[in-house]
């Protein structure tokens, strides 16, 4: 039974490290990216079970990343949690309707609560047979990649 795989994306390396530390100790496999482009590059080769991304990042923002994820058939149904220090400027309802973002977590956040939220989201999914993140998602990689 493989460990669930999480893709963490944040340009604040300290936050990335804290979340990575928490999820790894909980038995998750964690992939990290420091901006949207880097995360998208990872998604061309790996298929995580959940993406947790910051909103404001250089090169490609969190919303830009999610838009690409939704446009690509291989990643369109990937669950996403968005972290944001902006909070009140983004409506969770709008994010859900327009981008299919499951949850909006406002910074500062609790790693424990973030882990609990991720576990809740991943619970219904039956565990995959193979360990680790599933194979490349690039079979249906979009031209925009």
């Amino acid at each position, binding site marked *: 039974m493989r460990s669930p795989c999480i893709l963490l994306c944040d*340009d*604040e*390396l*300290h*936050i990335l*490290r*804290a*979340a990575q*530390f*928490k999820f790894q*100790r909980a038995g998750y496999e964690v992939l990290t990216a*420091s901006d949207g482009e880097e995360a998208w590059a990872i998604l061309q080769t790996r298929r995580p079970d959940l993406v947790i991304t910051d909103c*404001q*990042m*250089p*090169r490609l*923002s969190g919303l830009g990343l999610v838009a690409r994820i939704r446009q690509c058939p291989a990643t369109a149904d990937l669950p996403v949690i968005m972290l944001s*220090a*902006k*909070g*009140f*400027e983004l409506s969770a309802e709008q994010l859900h309707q327009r981008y299919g973002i499951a949850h909006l977590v*406002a*910074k*500062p*956040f*609790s*790693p*424990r609560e973030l882990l609990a939220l991720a576990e809740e989201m991943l619970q219904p999914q039956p565990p995959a047979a193979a360990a680790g993140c599933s194979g490349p998602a690039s079979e249906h990689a979009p031209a925009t990649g």
Partner: protein
Amino acid sequence: MTLFAGHAKTLTRRALWPVFLGSFAVGTWMLLALLLQDVPGRALASLAAMGLATIGYTVGRWQARVNAAAIQRALVPLSTLDACGLASWTPELPGDVGAGWQPLALALQQRMLELTRRAETLEMQRAAAEVRLRRLAAQRDQLDEILAGLGDPVLAVDAFGQIVLANPSARKLLGLPAATDSPLALERIERCETLVGMLSEASRRRVPAQRTAELALTDEEGRTHWYRLCCRPLAFSQEGGQAAEREGPHGAVAVLTDITGQKAIQKRNAEFVSAVSHEMKTPLSSIRAYAELLVEGEADDAATREEFLQVIHSQAERLQRLIDNLLNLARIEAGVVAVNKAPLSLNDLLAEAVSVMQPPAEQKQIALTSDLSPLYLGVLGDRDMLLQAAINLISNAVKYTPAGGQVTVRSRLSDEEVVLEVQDTGVGLSPEDCQRVFEKFYRVKKDRDMAPGTGLGLALVKHIVEDVHGGRIEVSSQLGQGSIFRIFLPGLRQLGG
């Protein structure tokens, strides 16, 4: 009436006395002639009678003229004297005439005095009314001028929905023709339904309450302006602090105040609060996350605990710097900052700034190096402020330089000035951005997603350098190549290092 009848009787008696005398003589003569039965004598008597009658009539008429002239001379002053003169006037009538005319003259004097006083009162009232009229006309001209000079459009309508007043600003904004004699219907205003609706409603309202609304209007140049519309009925007056109805609605007045600037400030303030909030939440997120990991015993080994504590420490310092930036900028702008100037070494200060910024630079894989002058570069300055300025410049360079880039801090002597230079290999600035990059809240649009920020850091640096230390700051940059920020400060003294 009795008085006048008496005077007429006297006049008649005096003037006709010669006639009576002549007639009496004629009668006597004719009686003698009849007694004498003498025809030639009767004829002579008739002639004599006619002659005497004529003489009597002439004398009587002359006497009447003399009397009338005397009376006229005596009464002439009545028509020329003022009230004071009339009060002290005494009629000077000729002896026998005066006795009869004295009461009439005195009665005339009283009447004339009364009329004169009344005329004087009326004249005073007329003069006062004229003064009031002139004052009102001046006030009206003044109000017209004020209304014409008002930048805020003002519009008034009567109870029938006719525009009775529109100052030039209102005419220009609402596309109304220049002032004409014929009134315009309110419905002529096509650009703003809200204004028409509120004015119509207010002109019918019986409660003197003011109503406001905010609306956007596009001017002739196609620019959109925001206005606050205040509308109130005109038929009510405020007396003794309570609304008193006069005669029901007479119309309504609307004043449009341009609040485009306020709206922009509100938007900028909201963006600023959002940016500051974001800036504060980012280090706070790290502090909270690592503190929670430590408290919940997630860090098993001492090295991990040490690492987490270091992160908390560095992020707390980052938060402190942000708060210092905010407070110092506010203090400098308010002129209440306490400046503690003392001689200090610019090189020592820069070394400290580089050491503070080394961890974030390393975290972002940016090579932060220093190339400091071997000379002692003395500056008379506030150490904390100059350190903050140097850290802000380096922090800015690190923020906008991609991973793998280079940030170099230099110092040198140039004539009588010491120069601090921060060069990066970052994204660079356009010439327009170079002009505006020191403005408060200004952030380069294309780089906003690259790094969070409040647009305060460089504004504060400029204030510290120019306003507090009498120096200057400049930037040279090329898009995609990087930027060089230079601070020039008056040198204290130069000694061999």
